[in-house]
């Protein structure tokens, strides 16, 4: 099957005050959506070795609208992380490298939303993340993640027209880049 990918919109963060990025009025003319993102957090507080990529669809922050699970192929933690699920008010995944201890390791994410314009079904999607800290203790403590794969469900059935991304604890660091692509099958 032939597949065409079109860049719909892109945002590169400048400065240090951007907390949230929203792609609104997403055209309903493609079959699927894909975000490719590379990001870091401004956080240097010492409380967070990593931050959570937090996603809201159509501006919804209602608790129980979202459920997610994920697998981590490798971590040094004990017990080893395994599938986790739970209803919540957002999709979130600990994939953002912070600026703690001078770290400069960005998180990378490919976030897929198949059949986003369907107006009669719940939406399901996947996301793949990569983030490796350069801080040795992060590995020892199990915070270094290798090739995590996340699955998410957004339970309302309306078409997806808006998506927001933000960190949970701090703003986006300058240079963080968010690209939205539309995919058309034929």
């Amino acid at each position, binding site marked *: 099957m032939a597949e065409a990918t079109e860049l719909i*919109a892109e945002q590169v963060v400048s400065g240090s005050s951007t*907390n949230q990025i929203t792609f609104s*009025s997403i055209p309903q003319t493609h079959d699927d959506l894909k975000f490719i993102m590379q990001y870091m957090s401004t956080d240097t507080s010492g409380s967070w070795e990593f931050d959570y990529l*937090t996603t809201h669809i159509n501006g919804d922050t209602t608790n129980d609208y979202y459920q997610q699970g994920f697998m981590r192929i490798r971590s040094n933690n*004990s*017990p080893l992380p395994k599938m986790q699920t739970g209803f919540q008010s957002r999709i979130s995944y600990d994939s953002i490298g912070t600026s703690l201890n001078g770290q400069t390791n960005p998180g990378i994410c490919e976030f897929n939303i198949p059949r986003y314009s369907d107006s009669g079904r719940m939406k399901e999607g996947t996301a793949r993340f990569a983030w490796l800290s350069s801080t040795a203790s992060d590995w020892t403590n199990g915070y270094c993640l290798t090739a995590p794969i996340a699955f998410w469900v957004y339970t309302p059935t309306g078409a997806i027209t808006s998506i927001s991304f933000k960190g*949970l*604890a701090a703003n986006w660091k300058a240079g963080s880049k968010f690209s939205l692509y539309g995919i058309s099958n034929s």
Partner: protein
Amino acid sequence: MPTKVIIDCSTGIETVLELTDEEIAANVAAAAAQKEAEDAAAVVAAQAATDKASGNAKLKALGLTDAEIAALVG
């Protein structure tokens, strides 16, 4: 003041707005709740590791080999 950037994909127009006090408060509360959940999970994980080590030691004291313990507990 933290801001939010809204990109209108139909026009390409970007709008930058400052977060409201309510949005900032919600962010702080969400981060605090997540941190609390992480700390609680770390305590549970640490206790599980301690229990595992203690259990293994007791099984060895009964005379079981490492291979027999592994066969029992996986």
